[in-house]
């Protein structure tokens, strides 16, 4: 029995200091406060002579911050890399972890990385930075990590999957400290692609609402330090997994098969989480699929929100950004309104949070789903 307890303790992993770089702030606190005040990142921006409702970080603000905070030349890095460096630097400043330690790992999660290099040839940026591992290596080298970065690119579950992978690596005792950074920028490439699929909403997106018209794309970088250290008021990654629908490469399963499988695996029998932070992209099919999966798992009455109404869909950053919000919500006793929601819009009625208010929860469920039929879920618990 004693051995068993010891193993269980060793297997634990916790979310620690974090950072979010987005139009709503350059720290986790700024972002969390902005969202609690109901601020929204999306505005109309012009890309390639067309107007899109997107959540984009101001370039001058980014470059100024980058110059002041890092003393490095902003011209040597892409927009995405600058956001990543600022984000990881904030983690470094608050954690003091040793990047030279073989037991420290940097995990980079992205879907498209520096995809904007495909069309805007930037003479100051070497062409090989289009490779995701090169981008990760540039960020890693900047800080001097001795370990090679681990790059996860698994569509829209990338960020959440990176956190699950971090937990597994810690549980397997391969590392002591892992920084997970999720990152994607808004580009002509992704805008035109989602537009070609008729998946973009021309106005601010409305997850789970009856009148939802599709997604907004957003850009963000989110980083979190994960370790086995248990501190007061910190959030534990209790369990996490992924599953494939084996149904369609660009449409979710009508029965929410993969997501339901994740929920079954992640939630202990009879366990009800305090709230659910769903994927909630505001496409007709995604939100409907989630509603079906949640109800199949008996979770339709649980408080549920989506953060896409504040940030848009930040692709490879979403799982990390939203997990940080889960942790802050638990720590600060808040439940956050699902921005854009007015009227029930799924075949199964969900308990969507309409107002941000103080409410204590000790656990929450985070889910994500993406192209390629992938799904992921994590159960977080406040210690």
């Amino acid at each position, binding site marked *: 029995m004693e051995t068993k307890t010891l193993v269980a303790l060793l297997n634990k992993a916790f979310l620690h200091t974090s950072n979010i770089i987005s139009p709503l702030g350059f720290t986790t606190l700024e972002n969390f406060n902005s969202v609690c005040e109901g601020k929204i990142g999306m505005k109309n921006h012009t890309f390639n002579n067309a107007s899109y409702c997107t959540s984009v970080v101001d370039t001058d603000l980014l470059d100024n911050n980058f110059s002041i905070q890092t003393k490095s030349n902003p011209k040597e890095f892409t927009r995405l890399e600058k956001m990543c460096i600022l984000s990881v630097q904030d983690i470094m400043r608050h954690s003091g972890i040793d990047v030279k330690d073989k037991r420290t790992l940097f995990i980079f999660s992205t879907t*498209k990385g520096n995809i904007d290099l495909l069309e805007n040839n930037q003479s100051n940026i070497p062409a090989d930075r289009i*490779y995701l591992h090169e981008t990760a290596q540039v960020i890693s080298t900047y800080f001097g990590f001795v370990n090679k970065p681990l790059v996860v690119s698994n*569509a829209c579950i990338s960020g959440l999957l990176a956190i699950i992978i971090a937990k597994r690596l810690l549980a397997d005792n391969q590392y002591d400290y892992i920084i997970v950074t999720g990152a994607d920028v808004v580009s002509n490439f992704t805008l035109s692609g989602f537009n*070609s699929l008729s998946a973009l909403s021309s106005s601010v997106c409305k997850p789970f609402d009856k009148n939802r018209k599709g997604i907004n794309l957003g850009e963000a970088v989110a980083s979190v330090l994960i370790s086995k250290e248990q501190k007061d008021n910190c959030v534990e990654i209790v369990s996490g997994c992924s599953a494939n629908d*084996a149904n369609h490469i660009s449409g979710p399963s009508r029965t929410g098969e993969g997501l339901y499988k994740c929920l079954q695996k992640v939630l202990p029998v009879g366990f009800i989480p305090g709230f659910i932070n769903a994927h909630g992209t505001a496409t007709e099919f995604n939100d409907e699929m989630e509603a079906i999966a949640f109800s199949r798992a008996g979770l339709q009455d649980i408080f549920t929100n989506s953060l896409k109404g504040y940030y848009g869909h930040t692709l490879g950053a979403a799982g990390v950004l939203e997990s940080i919000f889960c942790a802050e919500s638990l720590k600060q006793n808040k439940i956050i309104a699902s921005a854009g929601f007015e009227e029930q819009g799924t075949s199964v009625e969900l308990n969507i949070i309409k107002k941000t208010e103080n409410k204590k929860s000790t656990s929450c469920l985070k889910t994500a789903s*993406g192209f390629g039929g*992938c799904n992921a879920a994590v159960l977080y618990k406040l210690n």
Partner: protein
Amino acid sequence: MGNYILSYSKIAANCLWHNGKLISKSAETAAPSTILEDSYKSLNLSYPKFFKMDSLSKLGVLCAEPVLKDEPVNELFAKEKTAIVLSNKNSSLQTDLAYAKTMRDFPSPALFVYTLPNIVTGEIAIKHKITGENAFFIEPAFNAELLYNYTEMLLQENDAALCGWLHIDEKGCEGFLYFVAKQPAGEGKKSNFIRHNPDSITNLYIN
């Protein structure tokens, strides 16, 4: 105890191999698209969806076919507990470039949906109804250590995994997939199977 590689396949240097046996051979000068089509024919596949796929997905589906249809693999196929762990260097760059070319005039949704590396994971999952864990890693070169480590962790809670490397660029394609499971089906066959470790994975990849 320990995990075993029950079956493996490779598309490299204009050939498709399964468990070391030559299945298909294209002309020395054959383009990747021809190598993939020749392999499709040699496997006697009849799967119309194949022709809608991008090259990365075709490469993955073709490598997966003989492995997942292999007798010992088929016997212990627990689809919910089979993971798919893949890796490459370029993500979906070839298709990204192809899509970018269409962007100015008529952006192609049919191409755009393939501009993620894990779409091939979905294609393999759909064809073989595999609903387990997924992960796609981007590495500068084939990394047996990473695949081994991650798969071993997954096998603590899962039955099996299809793993490997699927690389495609303007010069050619290189696919290597193998199936790892906890226990080979039938004790008597055990000697035929390869122990799962970084060295054995590297050997199968190189040879």
